């Protein structure tokens, strides 16, 4: 069965210099097990191909059923250096929630 990440999770993203932070929060325990299993560093890196040009770091926050991702080298230099319309990565949580997962 294919599910959309946006149906089981929400989140928020922002900037840390040239890196974007993307936080994904599952709505329930079952959802957290799914994101914990499927949102691997490799899968997220592949999802952001053409957007994230650096390493992806992943942190687990089981207390709020969340995963935090740091996408390095993603914001075109970050801050006022960046020529990107979304220089602060504010729309990248939504971009990750577009993912479809086979369960």
């Amino acid at each position, binding site marked *: 069965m294919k599910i959309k990440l946006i149906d089981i999770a929400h989140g928020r993203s*922002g900037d840390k210099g040239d890196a974007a932070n993307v936080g994904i929060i599952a709505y329930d325990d079952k959802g957290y097990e799914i994101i914990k299993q499927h949102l691997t560093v490799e899968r997220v890196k592949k999802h952001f191909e053409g957007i994230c040009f650096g390493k992806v770091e992943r*942190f*687990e926050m089981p*207390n709020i059923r969340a995963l935090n991702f740091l996408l390095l080298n993603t914001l075109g230099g970050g801050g*006022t250096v960046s020529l990107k319309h979304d220089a602060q990565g504010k729309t990248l949580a939504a971009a990750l929630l577009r993912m479809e997962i086979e369960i």
Partner: protein
Amino acid sequence: MKDKIRIASGSGFWGDLQSIPLQQVTKGQIDYLMMDFLAEVTMSIMQKQKKRNPAAGYAKDLIQIMKDLLPYIAEKNIKVITNGGGANPMGCVEEIVKCAHKQGIKGLKIGVVTGDDILDSLDDLLKHGAGLDNMESGQHIKDVKERLISANVYFGARPIVEALKKGAQIIITGRTTDTSLTYAPMIHEFKWAWDDWDKLAAGVIAGHILECGGQASGGNFLSDWKSVPDLAHIGFPIAEAYPNGEIVITKHENTGGMVSVDTVSEQLMYEIGDPTNYITPECVADFTSIKLEQLEKDRVRVYGIKGKPATDLFKVSMAYNDGYTAIGSLTYSWPDALEKAKKADEILRTRLSDLGLKFDEIRTEFLGVNACHGPLALKQDEINEVVLRIGVRSNHHHDVEAFAKEIAPLILTGPPSVTGFAGGRPKPNEVIAYWPALMPKKLVKPEVQIVEL
């Protein structure tokens, strides 16, 4: 000792809703109002303003806000804490004093926190082992030292607590951390020890929830955003703090927005790195220890928080000049909107190259098509319009200026059905690049002064 205190958020950034501070003070009971005005490069913008005019260099909006608040501060016994003093806290205080005199307000104490500005003492600090290499890239400070516009230490709650002890009712600081504005009152009121890491961490997390204003009470809410009531009249978050380190996040009744486990969770995720090591000047907070519970409508309990000892380093925020950028845009309509925009981009790039202009980067985005999500964007066969957005960056002002002159001609010499050039020629912007660093705490000391009205 009070059995609880209520700390309200009045501003999430320099330019936030002007009506909020007064709303927080008048729509219900609070003890403290905190207002954050400083983002990463804000200090450098303020430093530039101060260079042009020695009386400037702080968040100007703060003066009107303080005019509104001054009559209530004494009457309701509310304390106001803000880092809106920016690059010129004393200049800001002088202006507030003038307002107070005009309003006939007397007997208030204003605390001023300075000492964070280390731009003029850099050589000396470096000699004493300040380090200051870029903590993200590892680049050496000497690469940018001559181009620095600002250099500020992030102080924490200590100088704010000192000002509160001295009886200050208004505290205006330079670069203090956003979170310290919220937890300094807790340390002061509940006499928390400086090594009570769990309680300090609880205060820090309350600060993280409050520091972006409405983002914790229904603004920018990615979950069920349509369910958030009355965003037009959004109520900003309030942290109700208890002596044992428990926090309840809430907002005033009869305001819009909402406070739920989901809105608070989203704010907890904002701009964090390793959640087990959220480093502040006073402690290291562990975000994986936070427990959230919806007590009732618009009340979320935040508890169970663990902290670790502080490091012996301060974070330093520096900014330096790094060339120029300009960004222009044109709108193309149906039919073949995207094809036209792509053709215009190609023509423009050819002309820039014919002119022999050199750029570090030329970036083209198609707003309405894929600017935000790049290759992940939906493919649509037919769109009604698209905005071609093209930006350049270079160390040469001339090249950036020359680029700006090439946008408008595309209207008469490029693909058809084009509009959206009402703003005129884009202006070259000076790029202010951010340089985060660390330095030993022992090398610098905050100064606290009290000005009496």
